[in-house]
């Protein structure tokens, strides 16, 4: 694993701030706050993975089943696609502006990627407890 230092944290926080900026601008510029649902969906996306990974038993116990983990992956993937699809669907039906849809979708993707990268770099400290 690549050693991540202070610069990584600063860079990641910058990118996260840019994603917040994009999402909030996409709402505020047109004073139509529906694209904020994209941010909500992306924020909820890691939750099924997290919950379902706790539901599974020990790897070598008799009642081990990969069903909950698979279900978590399935739902997480659904959330991610929904986060991208929602702004485009809203823009297609003319509820929000086309530019707002793009900004909201890109902001959501960038924010989610930032969080994933962060947890990839700093997962060791979290695993301790």
């Amino acid at each position, binding site marked *: 694993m690549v050693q991540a230092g202070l610069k990584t944290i600063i860079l990641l926080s910058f990118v996260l701030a840019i994603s917040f900026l994009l999402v909030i601008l996409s709402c505020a510029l047109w004073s139509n706050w529906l694209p904020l649902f994209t941010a909500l969906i992306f924020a909820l996306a890691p939750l099924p993975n997290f919950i379902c990974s706790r539901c599974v038993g020990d790897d070598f116990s008799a009642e081990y089943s*990969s069903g909950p983990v*698979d279900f978590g*992956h*399935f*739902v*997480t*993937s*659904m*959330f*991610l*696609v*929904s986060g991208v*699809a*929602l702004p*485009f*669907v*809203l823009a*297609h*039906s*003319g*509820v929000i502006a086309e530019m707002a849809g793009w900004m909201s979708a890109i902001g959501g993707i960038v924010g989610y990627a930032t969080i994933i990268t962060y947890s990839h770099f700093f997962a060791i400290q979290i695993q301790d407890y």
Partner: protein
Amino acid sequence: MSTASRPLRRTDPRRVCLISLPKVSLGPRKREFLVYFSGALFAIGWWFFLDAAISSAHATPLDDPGAYDPVPVHVTFSDWTPGICSTLGMIIVNLIDKQQLLSDDGDGASWGEGSWGGGVAWRARLFLFLGFALMAGGMAGSVTVLVIKYVLPPYPGSFGVEWGVANVIQSITIMLSAIVLWVAQSAESDYEYNLTL
């Protein structure tokens, strides 16, 4: 002859075709990847349909003030039924324990021998049939809705055809998602059994 054909059969003597499918190896996280892909397909299918529904709800009246003014057709509950059927079928198909399907294949005592194991396999196959019937029915229903509701009526400018097409795309995508999930579930135990449908 036999010497010429021997190198072709070197990999697997049970092979039928000369050109085999390339073995795509996605690594140890193949199952995870396939499950993610299946979920993505499922969501894409439903969002195609939701796009149609939202577009229909926000559709503007047509330009020409003819007989079909305002909007001639809307997405109604009849458009929802194929997707719901497909989703139910997908849930049923993927809830079946795959090992129950083949539980009595080995000893030849299949199809109603009277033993308990045969009963389980029989019921598993019945549920599998129901699930696939629901999925196929969803797809057929979506094509029916497309043709009867959107293509046949003489709406100006083929109004609303894209909503029907979105419905068909939704059914096909949910079916693909179910297939990918099935493959993912049987991927981890390649060495135990090969499911042949």
